[in-house]
């Protein structure tokens, strides 16, 4: 039996248990510490009323927050509006952030709560979650190192690889949007955003064991929905 297939993604989002050399882990830790230090300064400045600090914070985290919200909601327009609301909340509630833990876990908590509330609201209004991953959307999505779309396409041999890859991508986003929001959040945080368990625990307020068991159930639920696309 081969070893497991999931690894946290690159950058400061990787966990210390990644299959990386010691030097890489040190660099990641240093990068994370540097980011935390910068965040602390920005938060202090924002609390003192410095509007420029807010701008810097938004620009630092806008892609990550937008990505999280987009994967949770599945609709670009709705996600943009919601991501703006997240930062609006941050602006208003920054005084309540006491600086315990990393700033971004607090920001992600705000974002995930905002998403959950919106999902409940939309459910109440019978909003049809339109999965917003059409053929042209790829052009607006810069792929990661090596090409994320390429990595999807590479699983499908032959000249129809691109069409097949996009079909898979739409299917994942659609099935993700159909999952229970708690499950969706865990998959987005761990498998898409690549956050370490410790940070997921802080964001969700769940203990480690619960995070892992729920994550398993979430993955199994997604697997069941994706069954027709596998193999």
């Amino acid at each position, binding site marked *: *039996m081969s070893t*497991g*297939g*999931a*690894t946290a*993604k690159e950058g400061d989002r990787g966990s210390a*248990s*990644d*299959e990386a050399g010691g030097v890489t882990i040190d660099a990641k830790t240093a990068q994370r510490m540097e980011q935390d230090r910068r965040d602390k300064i920005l938060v202090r400045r924002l609390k003192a009323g410095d*509007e420029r600090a807010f*701008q810097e914070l*938004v*620009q630092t985290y*806008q*892609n990550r*927050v*937008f*990505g999280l919200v*987009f*994967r949770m909601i599945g609709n*670009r327009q709705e996600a*943009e509006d919601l*991501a*703006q*609301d997240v*930062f*609006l909340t941050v*602006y208003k509630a920054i005084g309540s952030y006491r600086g315990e833990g990393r700033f971004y876990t607090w920001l992600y908590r705000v974002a995930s709560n905002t998403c959950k509330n919106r999902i409940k609201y939309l459910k109440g209004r019978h909003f049809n979650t339109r999965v917003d991953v059409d053929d042209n959307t*790829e052009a*607006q*999505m*810069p792929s*990661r190192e090596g090409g*994320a*779309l390429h*990595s*999807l396409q590479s*699983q499908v041999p032959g000249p129809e690889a691109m069409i097949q890859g996009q079909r898979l*991508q739409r299917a*994942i986003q659609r099935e*993700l949007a159909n999952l229970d929001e708690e499950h969706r959040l865990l*998959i987005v945080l761990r*498998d*898409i955003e*690549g956050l370490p*368990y410790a940070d997921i625990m802080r964001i969700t307020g769940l203990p480690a*064991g619960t995070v*892992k*068991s729920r994550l*398993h*159930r979430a*993955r*199994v639920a*997604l*697997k069941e929905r*994706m*069954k027709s*696309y*596998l*193999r």
Partner: protein
Amino acid sequence: MAQSETNSAEELMTAYLDHEMDAEESEAFEAMFADSPETQEELSDLRQVLQLVQGLPEVEAPPDFFEKVAKKIRRRKLLDGEIPLFITVSFQVLSVMVVLVIAAVYTMIHLDRDPAAKLEKDPKAAVAEVEGDAEIRGEPGDEALPEGSPAPGAAPPGSSPPSSAD
């Protein structure tokens, strides 16, 4: 008891797939399910799903994202009755505006404080004006000057004398 065992198995499965186990634990886990084709298949399917999910491309916020956030904040402040701060005004625009305001105020103050400075600008014109008045009245220019008025070519009070004979 059964529930906790299920949870434990799920936790193990997650830890295994996420490489959160050390080599010894991984080997023990693999040995546990070595003779269970269902579990092997389950793990294989889960790996495939994870691979697909992790292959999703990153999405980027639109380029004008911050401007939209700032607009929302400004609107919210207006609704709350607060005076909006200059959150959307860029530093450069604000700097230019400040410089222009200072320049305008300085100019206005300077002109109001010293009206005689207008004469200093063109003393020739001032002399011509005085002489013109005297001619109209048919009097010699020197005598036509009212008391306290500066002599032609003389410096106005509080200013330096003209440098040339004009």
